[in-house]
């Protein structure tokens, strides 16, 4: 019953979002842009949850997909909160939020 063209469109959109996010993660040096890229990649997954929940065979299963999407959004929000806190701390310590300049995580 699913519209194959609509499915392809949604999956293409979410795949594109993931690739854009990953590209941003691998190329951005600015910590804030890095966090935004992560958000984009996460939203690719959220889109998938919501889309497939619309085609669920029954209401409880549809609710499962949608609630997973809500959980992931909440998770992303907390992650961003932690990430921004790190950005502030890093800015205070080093005066820069360029991730390529800090390697303190090394042993």
């Amino acid at each position, binding site marked *: 019953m699913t519209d194959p063209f609509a499915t392809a469109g949604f999956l293409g959109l979410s795949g594109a979002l993931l690739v854009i996010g990953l590209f941003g*993660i*691998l190329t951005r*040096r600015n910590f804030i842009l*890095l966090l935004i890229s992560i958000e984009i990649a996460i939203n690719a997954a959220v889109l998938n949850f919501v889309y497939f929940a619309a085609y669920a065979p029954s209401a409880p299963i549809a609710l499962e997909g949608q609630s997973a999407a809500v959980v992931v959004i909440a998770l992303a929000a907390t992650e961003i909160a932690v990430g921004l806190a790190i950005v502030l701390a890093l800015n205070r310590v080093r005066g820069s939020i360029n*991730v390529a300049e*800090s*390697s303190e*995580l090394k*042993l």
Partner: protein
Amino acid sequence: MVFGWADLNGYAFLVPLLYVLSFVIVGLFGHRLPRAEHGGWVAVVLAGLAMVVGVLIAVGEMVNPNTWTDTQYVWLHTVGNGTGTFPHGLELIMGTLVDPISALMLIVVTVVGFLVLLYSIGYMHQDRGLARYYAELSLFLTAMTGLVLADNLLQFFLFWELVGVCSYFLIGFYYERPSAASAAKEAFIVTRVGDIMFLLGVFIYFYVFALVGPNGGWAANGFAFALGGHPFLNAPGGYGVSLLFLNAHSTILTVAGIMILGGAAGKSAQFPLHVWLPDAMEGPTTVSALIHAATMVAAGVYLLAVTSIFIGFTPTDSLAIVAIGGFTTFFAATMAVVQPDIKRVIAYSTISQLGYMVLAVGAGFAMVGLYHLFTHAFFKALLFLAAGAVIHAVGSQDLFKMGGLGKSMRFTSIAFLIGALSLSGIPPFAGFWSKDDVLSQVYGTLGTHPAYWPFFLLALAAVFLTAYYIFRAWFLAFSGDHPRDPNLPHAHDPPWTMRVPLLVLSGFAIVAGVLPYLPAFGKLFDLGADVPPPPFGFSDALVSVVSFGLALAGFLTAYVLWSNGRVYALPERSPAQPVRQLLLHRYYFKAGFDALGLRGIYLLSRIADWVDQYVIDGTIRGLERAFGGLSGRARRMQSGMVLDYATFVVGGLLALLLFVLIVGPYVLHLWGG
């Protein structure tokens, strides 16, 4: 009779027990007694009691001929669980087996032991450490009587080791002297080579007879000897070992026999393990007389005799035993010919005479070998004790310093002469009868065993050498007018404690050969039909005449060269000079063994050290270094850069996807999944 003779046999343990008592008393309290030789008297009295018990047991065996009394005490008992090698468990026993041969050995050990202890009172009175001396001699006698009374091979081996360690203690009695300490060590190590072989032999016998044998004769009985003296290797024996079974195991039984021969050769100083006995003369002369002439060195012969009586040897073993014995008689006698040391002459003579016994046992006449052991114990102990009296009097062992002692030490010179006559086999002295039996019995086997010929001839040639070297020693020490070394102290005959043993042993050296002609005493040599007794008598007149002629020739040669204080010096340019050097250097055997130890074993150790350092340690160090390097490289991946980690995450994800979506299905497809 309320208490019969046979009842006494159950109390045979008293003999070693009395010696243990002496060992404990003298060993613990000997140094607290008012005078040092009091400990000696304790040992003498207890040894006297032991001698009484021992001789009574022997008399019992004469009264009830061929009685076998086995008194067993369980030493160790394992409980079996119904399966496995020993379904009913294994019992190890300590026991006393009184039979004619152990009675015979008891006479030898207890009588000579008592006489030597008595003699020690006079001989050792100037020495320090007397409590140690008497305690160790008592311990030795414990072990030796325990050995002759042993009723199983395991107990035999235990006491065998115990006499070995006592020998070690007593050779090293003068431990301040480096030569004595080294001689003790040499004796211990060389006999140890034989002991290991002995133990291996016992294991092989146990394997063959108990573990794979047809009816588990030994498994039920520990290592016990068969009562009645049926050899295991004789088909109609008490254990019913079939000929088929023997043929199937003949190789391993031959190996076992060779191992037993090795043990006996170590203890009885047979070629090539003979080197330790001459050096063992570093101990007190009394020790040489008791341990290294009469008893312990005879234990090897006793082991061979017991093995041939209870287990039996294969034909190959017999030939090997005959070869070792026959060769040793001649080999050792040649070295005695040039010795300047009175004790070493007698020591080589002991090796040579033990060779005769080994020869007889190998040729299948265990009782003839024990007959010679019996007579030899007395006349050789006599020779040693007489030599001890000389050494005691003049303070030197060098024959070339002595001379003319016959005048000042008439008693000793006659005692030594009796020993010498007996040793060289001049009738009617004891040595003649037993040596004659050995030679004639071996001669009788030559028809069926032509391979024995060379060894018989060597043994015959040794008769000449024996008479020559012992009379050379006698003439050098006792004939002439005065000592060759003017600094020698004026000699005198020994005190009564030393004379009595000499007197008694002289008596034995004269009559011991004909004692078995008494019907009662002869019972000690009668073990029934399986073991032929000595013939006692001129069983082969030709051999008797030839051996007597050779002995006489040896005596005459010695008389011509050495009598009346003459000293025969081999001319410098004589072609025999290299031979003399070879003999003086003992065929370079000791030097060879030393070289083997210092070079061969040292080289081996260095190779082992190299392997340890570079192969074993090298492997471990190499592994350590390789892993260290690998870790050093691996830790560089942790750069601390967030972007690098992100790359790893994404790269890992892609690799996972690649595997799950493409590689995995492809491999499954290849496997036909």
